[in-house]
């Protein structure tokens, strides 16, 4: 009995939180697809989220691709299967690491910023002020961020895929004595459309999740600077967990037996 109580309480809290997020998601998505649509705000957010994430996502992808080549080479050498390095790199990058790493990086960079900005607007009554000025805060603040993040994550991850493959190629050619054109040919013949597409679908889903968590926690923050800090942390943590969880779900959907 005593043992079950905290478990029950945690489950109830989780269910309540899920319900609150669901109640937020419904109208948020509704405002994304119903007019008026703030195109200029969407464009600005896309530049903010996509363009300015390029350096951090690019660097992450580059080093990941390099490490992948190095690791799989030393591993496969034991089975005399060094030729598979190109395949491993392109498959891991497009299917998994491109979207997941970009998603986690964007969660840290963009999700946190969204929660902090919207949270500050909440605790300084700017969101209330929007309402009194005949502007729906969900439509004006939340919808453009969700639309922009969902759309812009796709090209961002495509860039990450390419940079990651190039990282693997760089290490393979300069350190592991692969022939450059053979490596690239191996990559191109091995990779299938589905590998890339599944990764890009993940990208869009992760972009949606990151912006949703950033907006949700910002929107519901209370209690001054400290509340905004908590909202920021919660946005990043919940987005990261959801990314890893949904990554499994989506992988199972695409490739599961």
């Amino acid at each position: 009995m005593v043992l079950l109580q905290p478990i029950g309480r945690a489950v109830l809290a989780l269910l309540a939180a899920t319900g609150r997020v669901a109640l937020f998601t419904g109208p948020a998505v509704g405002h994304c697809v119903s007019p008026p649509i703030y195109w200029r705000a969407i464009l600005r957010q896309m530049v903010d989220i996509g363009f300015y994430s390029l350096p951090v996502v690019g660097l992450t992808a580059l080093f990941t691709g390099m490490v992948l080549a190095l690791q799989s080479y030393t591993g496969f050498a034991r089975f005399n299967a060094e030729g598979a390095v190109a395949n491993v790199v392109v498959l891991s990058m497009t299917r998994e690491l491109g979207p997941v790493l970009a998603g986690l990086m964007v969660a840290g960079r963009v999700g946190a910023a969204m929660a902090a900005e919207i949270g500050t607007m909440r605790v300084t009554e700017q969101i209330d002020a929007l309402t009194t000025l005949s502007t729906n805060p969900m439509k004006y603040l939340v919808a453009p961020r969700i639309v922009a993040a969902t759309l812009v994550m796709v090209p961002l991850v495509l860039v990450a895929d390419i940079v990651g493959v190039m990282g693997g190629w760089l290490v393979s050619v300069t350190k592991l004595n692969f022939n450059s054109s053979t490596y690239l040919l191996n990559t191109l013949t091995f990779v299938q459309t589905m590998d890339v597409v599944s990764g890009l679908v993940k990208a869009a889903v992760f972009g949606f999740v990151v912006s949703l968590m950033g907006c949700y926690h910002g929107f519901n923050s209370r209690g001054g600077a400290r509340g905004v800090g908590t909202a920021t942390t919660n946005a990043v943590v919940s987005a990261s967990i959801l990314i890893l969880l949904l990554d499994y779900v989506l992988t199972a959907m695409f490739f599961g037996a």
Partner: protein
Amino acid sequence: MTAKLSLRDVTKSFGSKTVLAGVTVDVQPGESLVIIGGSGTGKSVTLKCILGLLEADGGSIHCDGREITHARGAERAAFLSRIGMLFQGAALFDSLPVWQNVAFGLIQGRGMAALEAKDVALTKLAAVGLGPEVAALFPSELSGGMQKRVSLARAIATDPEILFFDEPTTGLDPIMADVINSLIRDRVDDLGATAISITHDMASVRKIATKVAMLYQGRIIWCGPVEEIDHSGNAFVDQFIHGRADGPIRMAVRAG
């Protein structure tokens, strides 16, 4: 005559803490009501309940005879398009320059062209004593008193028929406070607006109000024309307007 705004037994609690225990007050068209009361007595909460930013737990709020207590969607939007609100903490949008803050309701709410809205914004800024050089600055570059005035300009930008001012003169020097008080009074006298203001400053009360209501322990304990405030016969009101520490209102401080 139907009241412009009418509150009946409005209650509001946060958790176990009751803030409004049954607020009843009427404001007629063209009247300027000032709510006075100690800090933390629920004056701001009262305004937010009327605006729908907080939902009242009980009682009813009517505007022009129509119930708006729990109005949502289009009904709430219709009401909000007729009001202007100055928040206690100014609540300016810190990502937008001053003129866009003032013009926000015109551009976003009414769909006015930006150029035209900027002209209106500059006029409203001039009315609160701010020159065009302020228009391009961001709110973080202004002093507290200037932010208050920008927020006031934003509240009156659409010439709304119902105005709410939450401590409009707090943080202003006495001369600027008097300018703002006159501005608020002109809105009511010349433009026929209806206003509800909150203030601690008795000079403001005498200048702005046609009617005064005192909030204490979640209820309106006295309400009457501003001329009667000095002979209200109410010990609470007397203590408040003279700012005396001893009287029936006990402050929650303990002698240390």
